[in-house]
């Protein structure tokens, strides 16, 4: 039984069309013309409990609108939506108990008070039993290394510390589902890694369902098996990252470091993409033969010092999809 389910989910924003100029403004007062903007255009998806899904798409694709509908603060124009057995917009407060939310760009912590006070407040809001609260606090403090700044007012925390605080805050009431919106934006590599480990950990140990919305595809590649890709309010891909990479070509690149320059370097079955000095990049179809075969062929003919294989980067594929649209089985 899926924990999150939507069918033909649609959201149309209606705004008053404003005619230009002062006269137009006057006319706007009396005659109402509306402009409809379709933000989400028939999204059907379903998530099983315990999944960790990357929800990605370009700016304005409808990601935030979907998340808002899932959290219950936005009513869909039409379509079905169910989260942990509840209809979020109709049962907003009940739904709120099941979910946790982290926004990279805004904080839900109490600005002027020590971090720990925000946790205390959340304990009261969600009526977390004392024993459970103590256990969660201890566990999150250790996992996110918050011991040094629990007593520091939030306004004095660094962005990395604040984000860790926000994660702990979102998880304090053991939500079944957690929505992450750009959670690593602006963080340094160490802080990013700490956050990623935390997300992986709660997903694995607590079985928390995670929906990760981000533009940082390294987050997605590191954490998610499955991605849901949307553009212009419609779902364009829903599946594993691996399948997407396969659909965008089974080509891989073999990078070879040569011991000496070979101006007439060539190898059968592979295309030379780049040949500069001692470095050669070879493109080959991994369905035709394995990398081991290619390496042997190169090594038999030339003296080489090093080899490495480049997988197609998710980022490259996603960039292409944003630009050209999604075409399954397109060759890279």
């Amino acid at each position, binding site marked *: 039984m899926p924990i999150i389910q939507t069918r033909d989910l649609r959201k149309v*924003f209606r705004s008053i069309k404003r005619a230009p100029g002062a006269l137009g403004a006057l006319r706007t007062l009396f005659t109402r013309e509306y402009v409809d903007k379709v933000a989400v255009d028939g999204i059907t998806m379903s998530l099983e409990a315990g999944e960790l899904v990357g929800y990605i798409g370009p700016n304005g694709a409808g990601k935030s*609108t979907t998340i*808002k509908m899932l*959290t*219950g*603060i*936005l*009513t869909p124009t039409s379509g079905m939506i169910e989260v942990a057995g509840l209809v979020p*917009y109709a049962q*907003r*407060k*009940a739904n*709120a*108990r099941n*979910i946790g*939310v982290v*926004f990279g760009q*805004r904080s*839900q912590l*109490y600005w*002027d*008070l020590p971090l720990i*006070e925000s946790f*205390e*407040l959340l304990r*009261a*809001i*969600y*009526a977390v039993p004392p024993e459970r609260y103590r256990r969660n606090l201890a566990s999150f403090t250790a996992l996110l290394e918050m011991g040094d700044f629990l007593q520091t*007012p939030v306004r004095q925390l660094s962005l990395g510390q604040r984000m860790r605080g926000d994660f702990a805050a979102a998880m304090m009431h053991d939500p079944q589902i957690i929505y992450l919106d750009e959670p690593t934006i602006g963080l340094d590599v160490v802080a990013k890694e700490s956050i990623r480990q935390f997300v992986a950990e709660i997903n694995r140990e607590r079985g928390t369902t995670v929906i990760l919305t981000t533009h940082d595809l390294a987050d997605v590649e590191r954490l998610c098996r499955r991605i849901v890709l949307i553009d212009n309010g419609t779902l364009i891909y829903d599946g594993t990252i691996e399948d997407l990479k396969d659909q965008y070509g089974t080509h891989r690149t073999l990078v070879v470091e040569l011991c000496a320059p070979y101006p007439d370097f060539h190898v059968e079955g592979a295309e030379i993409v780049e040949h500069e000095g001692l470095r050669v990049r070879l493109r080959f179809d991994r369905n035709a033969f394995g990398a081991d075969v290619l390496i042997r062929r190169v090594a038999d003919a030339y003296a080489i010092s090093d080899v490495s294989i480049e997988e197609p980067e998710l980022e490259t594929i996603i960039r292409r999809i944003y630009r050209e649209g999604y075409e399954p089985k397109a060759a890279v």
Partner: protein
Amino acid sequence: MRLAPYLAFASKAFAREATYRFEVFTEVGSLVLRVYLLRSIWTALYSQNLAPLGIPLHAMITYATVALLMSLILEVDGTRAIRDRIREGTIATDFMKPISLPLYFFSDGFGQTALHALLVLPALGLALLLVRIDVPPPATLAAFALTFALGYLVNFFLNFIMNAVAFWTLETFAVQLMVRWASDLLGGQLLPLTFFPGALGAIVQALPFAAIYWTPLRIYIGELPPSQWGSAVATQVVWLGVFGAVAYVMWRLAERRVVVQGG
């Protein structure tokens, strides 16, 4: 409904206000200064005209001082958070919490008020070094406390309505400034409403602003005989009902606006 979260909101707001120590001290300081200035002004005015409209000088000074102490509490606007959070966009995360937001703003404001109410005591102590104020009999004090509490609630809803306007306009500063001036002047914070002549006086006394300062204050200085306390309280309750209803309708509309239009 569980009360625990709202008690927590109030106590956190109290703690938060207390972190701004400098502001707290300057507030007490400025209050004492204003008490001194008001005494000087009224004494000067009374030297020209003894006991206008039957309010003797000591009652007038009592009135002005108590009004100032009340303003220490009534000028705390907990619902300002509504406007701030709408502008910052954080109101959306507030809607993702399993709580009643109007009650949240009320308890947060109440917590802030509680801290400022504590400040009334040292401020009163210092003020008493400068001026002598009348202390009415216990029954009158009790009636004052009740009408002050009702006035506090009317004031809360008035502020709530003003700040909730931000759901539509984002900005409320100008509106609030005007309403604040009107309510200070027409509500009796600056001077007793009996000072307004004839028809103007009648209108001013019929306005809702009178329920905030004027009703408790006229009971305190003995301007309103006990036989009329009941109807004064009833009038406050009516205004409370009206403002409460307006605030409720506005909140429902605001909520709809957020969930339909996305704020």
